[in-house]
């Protein structure tokens, strides 16, 4: 009963005209960046982070959330029609989605992707409503040791799932922690690694780092080769899947939704992992696995549902524990902090309007996306024809402006350009930026919790093992760190390792 009252309260907040407008802007921009290759949800969210300052916290966060799950919808359009994933979570949709389009079945592929996404998004929201308050009440009992160990687990999971060698990913995570510690020490107020520059006293901003590593570096990589687009030119019809298509997709949508939701909750996981895992599961369960890769609708329905369910599930650790499970959620945490809010176990009780308003707006956003994606598919296809040589200077200009506007400081533009160049060379040498960014956000929190738990336990390191939740997290982290040393597990890791960069 309480949940229903809270949901009604949430809809009251989400249906305010201003919040509806922000929700629409969010899902529209999300679809747009999902459709356009070369700019993903991370770049778009960091670009629009300063815009959230102008409205209420609800409006800003509703818009940011809209960009995230909107990009999951939009990403499938480019994957199916152009064979270029609009964002990383849609990589796997290219395999069968584009084959379906080549066989003249672009309509059903786009249709099932939108319906699957809608069903998964709805399920994830209902589960979020039921799970989050319960987890938040448990999380109140968490101490600094539990928080520290959870963050360590999150970072280790992400490094485990990152493409390339594990030492490289771990090195990136360590560099992220160090970058996050630049500025005044929160306990002793001693400046660290500031090199005498006043601009670094408050540390390096998240926006220039993310925009540099993901926005500018991505453009630099894309300019290396002329992007050729194989756009399906035939008219897209029959967006409503046939009875056979629906029958074939029901199982993959259901399994993808549940799998995606749980993988989304896991720290370090997220939409990308979920979509790959769902594809692998469907291929394994299929009686005709040889159809996969040649236009099997199950290969579109499962991953597309999984990535949307994961996008919803990822809100749980952020909202209940205050720990972002991936880079996108780290940016959302930035939006909370900008408004002086701290997501965590007390958010739901102290700010029910905000929490339930965001949840309700996500449901409204899912409905908006269904309307935006199916009848307006022609418009998105037209947009795909915008040549990259015109698009990339615009992306560069928008990133410069986005970074400048976030702090009104030219120094941040220099930081972004520097990180753009560093990010380019990192990617060329096989170092993924995702662990660095997550560690950059978690680093100061990890340090704080580590030092607090050591002070509280009077230097007793056993405190991390004596507390059951902390011990379980550290044990999992240890297993994942050792896993790549075993050849069988190393092969498994290579199969699921992902490029989170896009």
């Amino acid at each position: 009963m309480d949940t229903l009252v809270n949901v009604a309260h949430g809809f009251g907040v989400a249906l305010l005209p201003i919040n509806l407008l922000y929700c629409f802007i969010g899902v529209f921009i999300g679809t747009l960046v999902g459709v356009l290759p070369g700019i993903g949800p991370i770049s778009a969210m960091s670009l629009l982070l300063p815009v959230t300052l102008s409205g209420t916290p609800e409006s800003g966060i509703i818009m940011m959330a809209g960009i995230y799950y909107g990009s999951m919808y939009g990403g499938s359009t480019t994957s199916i029609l152009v064979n270029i994933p609009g964002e990383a979570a849609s990589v796997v949709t290219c395999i069968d989605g584009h084959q379906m389009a080549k066989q003249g079945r672009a309509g059903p592929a786009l249709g099932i992707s939108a319906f699957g996404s809608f069903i998964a998004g709805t399920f994830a929201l209902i589960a979020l409503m039921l799970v989050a308050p319960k987890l938040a009440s448990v999380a109140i009992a968490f101490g600094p040791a539990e928080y520290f160990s959870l963050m360590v687990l999150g970072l280790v999971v992400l490094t485990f799932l990152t493409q390339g060698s594990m030492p490289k990913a771990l090195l990136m995570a360590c560099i992220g922690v160090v970058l996050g510690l630049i500025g005044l020490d929160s306990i002793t107020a001693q400046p660290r690694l500031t090199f005498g520059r006043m601009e670094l006293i408050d540390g390096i901003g998240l926006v220039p780092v993310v925009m540099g590593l993901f926005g500018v570096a991505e453009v630099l990589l894309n300019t290396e080769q002329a992007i050729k687009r194989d756009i399906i030119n035939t008219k897209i019809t029959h967006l409503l899947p046939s009875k056979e298509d629906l029958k074939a997709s029901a199982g993959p949508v259901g399994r993808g939704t549940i799998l995606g939701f749980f993988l989304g909750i896991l720290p370090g996981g997220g939409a990308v992992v979920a979509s790959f895992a769902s594809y692998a599961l469907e291929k394994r369960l299929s009686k005709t696995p040889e159809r996969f890769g040649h236009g099997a609708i199950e290969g579109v329905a499962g991953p597309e549902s999984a990535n949307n369910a994961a996008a919803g599930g990822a809100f749980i650790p952020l909202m209940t524990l205050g720990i972002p499970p991936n880079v996108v959620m780290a940016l959302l945490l930035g939006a909370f902090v900008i408004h002086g809010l701290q997501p965590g176990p007390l958010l739901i009780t102290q700010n029910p309007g905000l929490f339930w308003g965001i949840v309700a707006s996500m449901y409204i956003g899912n409905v908006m996306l269904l309307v935006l994606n199916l009848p307006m598919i022609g418009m998105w296809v037209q947009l795909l024809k915008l040549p990259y040589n015109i698009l990339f200077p615009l992306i560069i200009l928008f990133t410069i402006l986005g970074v400048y506007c976030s702090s009104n400081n030219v120094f941040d533009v220099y930081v972004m350009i520097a990180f753009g160049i560093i990010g380019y060379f990192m990617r060329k040498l096989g170092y993924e930026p995702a662990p660095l960014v997550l560690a950059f956000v978690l680093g100061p929190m990890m340090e704080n919790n580590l030092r607090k738990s050591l002070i509280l336990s009077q230097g007793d390191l056993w405190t991390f093992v004596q507390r059951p939740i902390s011990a379980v997290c550290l044990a999992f982290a240890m297993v994942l760190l050792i896993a790549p040393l075993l050849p069988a597990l190393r092969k498994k890791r290579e199969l699921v390792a992902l490029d989170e960069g896009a």
Partner: protein
Amino acid sequence: MNDQTNVKLRLSNSELWGGVIGLALGGFVIWSGLKLKLGTINDPGSGYVLFYTGILMCVFAGSIIVSAITEGGPTLASRWENVRWSKPLLLIACLVAFSVALEPLGFLLSSIPLMLLLLRLIDPVRWTLAIPVAVLVPMGMWWVLKRLLLIQLPSGLFGIG
């Protein structure tokens, strides 16, 4: 990978260079941590986490170096093989020039040439399209930010923008 692109103990081994840079950074972080004071385990100081993170960095960088020597790695040149390496280089040069010019020239006078250079140098767009885009987009953005959102953009020594 052929013999020319997979090398072991050679200076052209890109994996080796990645590890060496990581090791140098780790060493610097350890030194910074020591300089900031480690404190005690009961009361960790400002350099405590930095010091141990630096040690971890050295361990991971060391493991990258060992695997570069034992298993080999692609050469630096092979990382840029079959790609238009001059294009990102040009883009980097444009961005560096822009960052130097931004404060003295202001937003408009630095972003219009930047846009024009990007539109013409990388994958050339015809002049009749490049000029209007390079002029109108920064001016439009400037107008929205400065007039509508009242965000102060750098106006430079000439006070334009």
